[in-house]
């Protein structure tokens, strides 16, 4: 297993306390949302599949923290974190997981397909790699419309050997599209270890092959991700073209909730749990902007209350009427 290197550009950050607390809160919202969803799923209350992003919160928040509301993201089957980090309300998230009328997609999409155009969420995606060329297209649209938005594609290490990865990134590169390609390398694609499918030490080496910058980031270090994302986003906004970021991280749960994850050693899981991005950022805040147990309690309690209310909202929401199953096939 390749150990992630800490970003050596950490000194650049000037996160003020308000921003830091905001980013921290977003990580806690993801963590608590995912944990609650896992419990509900285990109780058989949520239909379908559930892919948890617990352990990977710093990537979602570090990147989305560097974005504006009108920037776009495309996401993956493991997309809850990205969408929450982009600003989604937990109530409509849970409602979608429950398949209710009030969900982001009225129960027509579900966990793997959450979209919210208002938040620039162009979609989680059930097809590995598919969001990459779509983000390139959003970048093309930005360039043609002449706005200064940015389009980000999140994808896993499993996506890097799809044709969509190659075609999408190359297109963005040759046209200098305002895109950021974020590989969330959690070391496994289902059971397949990343080194089995990659002959080079880091994906970022491929960036050179596309003629774009690549940066390897410790994906459990929120500040490092945030910094790298800011550099990439600034570059894109300035019209200088795309960047490939590789954020090394780890998913605590198996591929899906219920996967016993027999393909990985327990010591490895423990190693990564000890590098939990949330306490790591707490330590950073203590050192740089001030943060204590009372601050921590306040955030966790407020989020717990939000989660509880959101689940209640979802459970009390009406089922989508069956006629809706035939709506919106066409515009």
């Amino acid at each position, binding site marked *: 297993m390749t150990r992630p290197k800490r970003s050596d550009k950490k000194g650049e950050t000037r996160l003020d306390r308000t921003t830091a607390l905001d980013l921290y809160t977003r990580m806690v919202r993801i963590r608590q949302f995912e944990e609650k969803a896992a419990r509900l799923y285990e109780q058989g209350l949520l239909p379908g599949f559930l892919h948890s992003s617990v352990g990977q919160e710093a990537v979602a928040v570090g990147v989305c923290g560097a974005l504006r509301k009108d920037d*776009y993201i495309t996401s993956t089957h493991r997309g809850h974190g990205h969408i929450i980090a982009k600003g989604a309300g937990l109530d409509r998230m849970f409602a979608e997981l429950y398949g209710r009328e009030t969900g982001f997609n009225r129960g027509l999409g579900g966990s793997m397909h959450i979209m919210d155009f208002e938040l620039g969420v162009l*979609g989680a995606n059930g*097809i590995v790699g598919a969001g990459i*060329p*779509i983000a390139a*297209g959003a970048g093309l649209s930005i360039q043609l419309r002449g706005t200064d938005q940015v389009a980000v594609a999140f994808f896993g290490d499993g996506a890097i050997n799809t044709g969509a990865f190659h075609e999408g990134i190359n*297109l963005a590169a040759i046209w200098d599209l305002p895109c950021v390609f974020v590989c969330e390398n959690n070391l496994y694609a289902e059971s397949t270890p990343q080194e089995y499918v990659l002959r080079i030490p880091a994906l970022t080496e491929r960036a050179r092959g596309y003629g774009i910058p690549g940066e390897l980031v410790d994906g459990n270090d929120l500040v490092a991700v945030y910094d790298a994302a800011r550099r990439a986003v600034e570059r894109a906004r300035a019209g200088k073209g795309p960047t490939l970021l590789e954020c090394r991280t780890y998913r605590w749960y198996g591929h899906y909730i219920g996967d016993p994850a027999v393909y990985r050693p327990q010591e490895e899981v423990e190693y990564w749990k000890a590098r939990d991005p949330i306490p790591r950022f707490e330590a950073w805040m203590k050192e740089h902007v001030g943060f204590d147990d009372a601050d921590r309690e306040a955030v966790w309690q407020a989020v717990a209350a939000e989660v509880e209310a959101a689940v209640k909202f979802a459970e009390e929401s009406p089922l989508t009427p069956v006629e809706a199953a035939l709506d919106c096939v066409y515009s």
Partner: protein
Amino acid sequence: MRDNVLMREALREALDEEMARDERVFLMGEDIADPMGGSYKITLGLSTKYGKHRVRNTPISEIAIVGAGVGAAITGMRPVAEIMYVDFLEVAMDQVVSQAAKIRYMSGGQLSVPLVIRCQGGPGRSAAAQHSQMLEAWFFHVPGLKVVMPSTPYDAKGLLKAAIRDDNPVIFFEQNGLYNTRGPVPDPGEDYTVPLGKADIKREGKDVTIVAYAQMTLFALQAAEQLAKEDGVEAEVVDLRTVSPWDKETVLRSFRKTGALVVAHQAVRQGGVGAEIAATVYEEALDLVDVEIARVGAKFAPTPFAPHLERYVIPGKDEIVAAVRTTLERGGRFGAVGQAAAQRAGAV
């Protein structure tokens, strides 16, 4: 109105007029910019007129062409993506089928995908198995896609303009055997569209309904002339124009008039569009006795290279004539017509 416009000119005019009308419309695809102007020259001159940012050459990246089209479409543009051969859409099927076609639905109606995927193809040129398939049935099977296949220059222009203005993903399938055909088309700049989803009766008749689209429409019209001359049979030719959603109403109305149906296409018969139309008509017309339905389609083989083999596999006018005769003979209720057909049945 001009009465002798090439199909390829009509298509270019549609693109030109829509680009002039709406700056959100742009084109991308392989080799579409000048000086090449597209493998079949449909986009010739457009990059010179509108600039290479709006008429964009792409790498050979079908996934990215369709995928970027989807991304641009859901964020405010109206892309027309060109795929050089419909056969190459196979490479990008996920972006067509699970992205473009489903985003509106999966988003609960939030997003629409105003994307036109122009492609061309078809048999008749010894292009062999990978460059001449009629793949419309694949897309016909997918809710969320529209599939348009014009047969005349007039329809081609009006349908392409309508497709570009439509808020849904449209597979606009141009049959290359029609590119050099000519027909009447209104003057440039005279704005007209042909509505998607509406069939057109290209020839009226009372004895049998022939449903076709794209080049098969022309073969159906030739077949109808032959049947009129040799058999005294008046065939009605319904040109679907839009294959999905298909115009059930017009087909059924015609069928209720004639009581006999032949659905003809050059795609393989098995699992083809004709199977769906035949089955639907049968189900909807259960109240009618003495109905006759037949399908014409390619034999179940890839398209062979040698001209005589290709002609053997892919149907045209003769197969339509034969199918009409067999059908009417089987029905037997057309009196003289049926008997004449019965005599020929042995030869068919």
